[in-house]
């Protein structure tokens, strides 16, 4: 525990808010984009290329005064399936949460099929999650399956 606390000190502490830990370092900016953190007025601090036994290099994001809904936070499961959330109130961790792959993915992911209508007209993509591990997303429109390897995050 002592060790963990030391690492967390590398990014300044927050009084109230959410700490998102165990984000694969290479997906930090995808998580920021999926959660729309570049467009909110809250104080956001992040650290990246931190050492992690599980992930090699990880990132961590701290968002002050922000508490996410499950549906919102589960969106990041596509790029950070092992992410852990610490809910902070008055500098204390009051709750820990993990992320779950949702049953449906709306937006976020591009359909891998170049002949899919969603890649030719301004349409919000919509997938049914056919398998969570490994991730398989079935497009509502072209009915093709986008796998984890083929997955590309929009914007």
């Amino acid at each position, binding site marked *: 525990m002592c060790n963990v606390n030391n690492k967390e000190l590398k990014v300044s502490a927050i009084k109230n808010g959410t700490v998102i830990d165990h984000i694969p370092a290479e997906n930090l900016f995808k998580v920021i984009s999926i959660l729309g953190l570049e467009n909110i007025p809250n104080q956001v601090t992040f650290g990246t290329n931190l050492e992690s036994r599980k992930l090699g290099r990880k990132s961590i994001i701290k968002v002050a005064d922000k508490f996410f809904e499950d549906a919102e936070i589960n969106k990041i499961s596509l790029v950070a399936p092992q992410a852990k959330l610490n809910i902070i109130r008055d500098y204390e961790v009051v709750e820990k949460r993990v992320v779950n792959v949702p049953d449906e993915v709306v937006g976020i992911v591009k359909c891998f099929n170049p*002949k*899919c*209508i*969603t890649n030719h*007209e*301004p349409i919000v993509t919509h997938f049914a999650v056919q398998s969570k591990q490994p991730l398989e997303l079935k*497009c509502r*429109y072209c*009915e093709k*399956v986008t796998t984890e390897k083929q997955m590309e995050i929009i914007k």
Partner: protein
Amino acid sequence: MIKNKSLVSITDFTKDEILRIIELAADFEADPNQRLLEGRIIASLFFEPSTRTRLSFETAINRLGGRVIGFSDANATSTTKGETLKDTIKMVSNYAELIVMRHPLEGAARYASEQSRVPIVNAGDGANQHPSQTLLDMFSMHKTQGRLDNLKIAMVGDLKYGRTVHSLIQAMSHFSPTFYFVAPDELKMPNEYKDFLRAHGIPFEEHRDMNEVIDKVDILYMTRVQKERFSDLLEYQRVKDAYILHNSMLESTRPNLRILHPLPRVNEISTDVDSNPKAYYFKQAENGVYTRMAIIASILGVK
């Protein structure tokens, strides 16, 4: 309830709905001039040309006494000026009571069904779905075999890219079939469909040679083996003749065997088969009109 429902993918219809379409198609065949759509307007939007499918649908609409508006090629419309599919569908759904559409992009019909105020009948969206073809194939099987249950069905040729065989597998899964897949290695049935069959407990065998299965099946479903599908042209040269059906191969087949093909055929069925009473592909195409009458009449609730 089929009324007011779009038909985008064959999986949109339940077993009972499929059987209802087949029953209605038989009814229209027995009496093809039922003017149930007198004075009503149906749109036929072909964003890519397909003369065969368009004529079949438009004949069906005309037989029902309905009127057709639309286009047969997107080059003739404002879509070439950059109008979105959404806008075209929004406009046309103000004029027509049902839209038949064909589009080169996959998923176009599903998207249109979400934008349209009126039902959409998918007449083909790229390599994805073509459900009226599947229903006419099933009507043809039912008509020639007197049943859909427990049929032994051989599918021959391009089983990898052929959307008709993929849809047919899904739709026939309601009726306890046995499948025999005959294809060159490069064009074998994809794993996702074999997994689907295993999950539904439907038996299938895979073969490279048609002669191994031809004598034991009720339906021989032929498809085109296209040169463009091969990464190795030598491989194409080597296998192409093995997927051509000749009349001499039919000698000891079952008397009830019927040969189906979604057409157009190139050379995969030799012309000497055409006069064999087991050849059914031209009649199958005619069945398409009755099947499409059944689809349109039931969606519009006039039958």
